[in-house]
């Protein structure tokens, strides 16, 4: 469907994996499968998962890999049509009216069609995504949809199923070529079923130890091999104990970068205590790991790694 634009869409699931991998994004097979399907079926993809597992990154990397513009709509409470879809350039319109007055134009309908023309239209993300550049449908990222309110969610229903918006003064604008839509949610509230029904759904999980190690190798250049192994084992272990907020991949990468910058070659209790802030974001979690729990955890991790090596 989109052969004319950007790079050609991959023909297989392996194609997707290779495509993303070229941009240093390691996608697990299930994620690659749903991405492939979303592209093939022209459906929006709804990605849910804990913060920091790389949902937003998928869209960014996809845009880059396919050589298409990325249009991002960051959702927040109170997001309305004026800041999400379009707005008229009122000062310019006003000026136009005054000019018309001064030059004695009295044709009202011409004036109206003049000032409600494209010249005075300010395009916001949704309209940009639908219009696109000719022949290059963009990747449209609707980020953290759960932060907006139900009213906006309902508005999106038309956009996501028909890829069109209606501007009263102007008419309906329909996408010549539908954008590739990726919707993300952190599940801070339930998104309505009607919206989910229009999308393919995928829960993005924390990566396996092997995947996470591969990600660290790719993303954190110059991170010592032994250290990377310890970091990954430690983080994986952290996720199994009952924390208020588990560290995501983003946090693991931050941590590995921090430790590399500090020239550490192995984990030790002091280093962990000093840099825990990159990994954990709640005081109670930090207090807990800085206490006796943390040392126990570290010795367990080291013993496991030793057993694996031996």
């Amino acid at each position, binding site marked *: *469907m989109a052969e004319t634009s950007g790079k050609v869409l991959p023909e297989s*699931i392996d194609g997707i994996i290779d495509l993303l991998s070229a941009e240093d994004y390691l996608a697990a*097979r*299930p*994620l690659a*499968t*749903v991405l*492939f*399907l979303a592209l*093939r*079926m*022209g*459906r929006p993809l709804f990605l*849910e998962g804990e913060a920091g597992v790389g949902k937003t990154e998928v869209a960014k990397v996809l845009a880059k890999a396919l050589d298409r513009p990325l249009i991002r709509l960051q959702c*927040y*409470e*109170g997001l*309305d049509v*004026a800041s999400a879809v379009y*707005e*008229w350039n*009122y000062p310019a*319109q*006003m000026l136009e*009216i005054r000019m*018309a007055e001064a030059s004695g134009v009295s044709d*009202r309908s011409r*004036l*109206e069609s003049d*000032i409600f023309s*494209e010249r005075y239209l300010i395009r916001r993300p949704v309209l940009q995504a*639908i*219009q696109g550049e*000719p022949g290059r449908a963009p990747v449209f990222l609707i980020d953290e949809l*759960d*932060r907006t*309110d*139900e009213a906006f969610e309902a508005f999106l229903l038309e956009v996501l199923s028909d*890829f069109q918006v209606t501007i009263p003064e102007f008419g*309906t*604008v*329909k*996408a*010549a*070529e*539908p954008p590739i839509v990726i919707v993300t949610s*952190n*599940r*801070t*509230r*339930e998104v309505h*079923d009607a919206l*989910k*029904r229009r999308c*393919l*759904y*995928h*829960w993005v999980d924390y990566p396996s130890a092997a995947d996470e190690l591969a990600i660290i190798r790719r993303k954190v250049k110059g991170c010592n091999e032994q250290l990377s192994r310890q970091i990954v084992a430690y983080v994986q272990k952290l996720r199994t104990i*009952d924390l*208020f907020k588990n560290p995501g991949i983003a946090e693991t990468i931050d941590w590995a970068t921090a430790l590399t910058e500090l020239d550490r070659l192995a984990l030790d209790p002091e280093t962990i205590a000093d840099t825990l802030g990159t990994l954990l974001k709640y005081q109670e979690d930090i207090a807990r790991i800085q206490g006796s729990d943390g040392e126990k955890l570290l010795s367990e991790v080291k013993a496991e790694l030793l057993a694996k090596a031996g």
Partner: protein
Amino acid sequence: METFGPHQASGRDGIVVPPPVQGDGRLADNVVHFARVLRKAGLKPGPGAVIDAIAAIDAIGIGSRIEFHAALSAVFVKRHEDQPVFDEAFSIFWRSRDLVGKMIALMSPVAAIGERQKPKAGGARVSDALFAEKQRASKPKEEPDVEIDARLTVSAQEVFRRLDFGQMTSTELREARRAIERLAMPRDLVQMRRYTLSPRGRGIDARATMRQSLRTGGDLMLPKFRVRRQQPPPLVVLADISGSMSQYTRIFLHFLHVLTERRRRVHTFLFGTRLTNVTRQLRHRDPDEAIAQCSEAVADWSGGTRIGETLKLFNRHWGRRVLGQGAVVLLITDGLERDEVELLSRETDRLHRSCRRLVWLNPLLRFSGFEARARGVLAMLPHVDELRSVHNLEALSDLVQSLSGAPDRDCDPRRYLGSGRSQS
């Protein structure tokens, strides 16, 4: 206008309806069957999802099992909670087709026995309506307890309003439920970030002003004003359904049912030894059916309580999802905790810090000599904004009033804290 897309149907429309899968009719049949199994198991795949599933399988081709699983899951699962059910159904269904029949039977005991045998929840009301006169005649009316302040000056209506839910007869309970339906619901509004037009607004709405002025060709510019839109905040209810609380929770569920019907964003959780989200069940129109579905969803009705543990669960798994946008929390429990109270104190504190207002409804407060001496009560008190009773109609309507306006001074939890500490 050239850059705007053509108005004819886009290429996408051709893809939604899949081409018939050639020579593989059985696969399509199986997918349809699988969707039915999922529906029995509690998921809600619509007919559209089946078409999507077939299109998806067609798109990926029959490859590895992982891909097949991912494709079907993307189409059929729309909530993370449904994933385990789907996984289980998937592993059984696509392993051997002989199991299908067994599985349908396994997952739907109701279907096997037949829908008719299950008594309709509304049935109780029908029989009530038909035979209420008889019951009223045969049942000796219980004397109201001494707790009620039945002075000669108060009318029968007022006596009723102060009658404890725990001591009401079934007729009186029915009456109480009717009264709850007539109760005015709280009008607590908070400002939203969105705007709405208003003649008394302060800010000028440029969009509306412009539109208006165009009616006169831009000659007359009358400013249009806007104000912040107002809307009730989310209301989250955590109700204890342990044995000691059961009489109160039932009637309170009726209150919640009315509330859920009349306002948006009401989330209800029931807890005993575990936590159950019954928000969806309470949305059922018929109150009896809704409450029947609630009790069906809850595995631990009238059992023990582990308040601290369940609050912890709530904070971890639901807090961030339902407490956004300045939620008000109603916590209904008697605070009689068996487990360690340190956990209870910590989790109540966290709950308090993540909502706008935490109101504790405690039916034990009906006893005039209530003192905060139980360890659980002492652990929770410092972290709540209000402590109220919920044992009769009057208390309920007080609650409604308090939710609409400022907190009531009489309900300051510190009052009990002082007396409780000094005497224990």
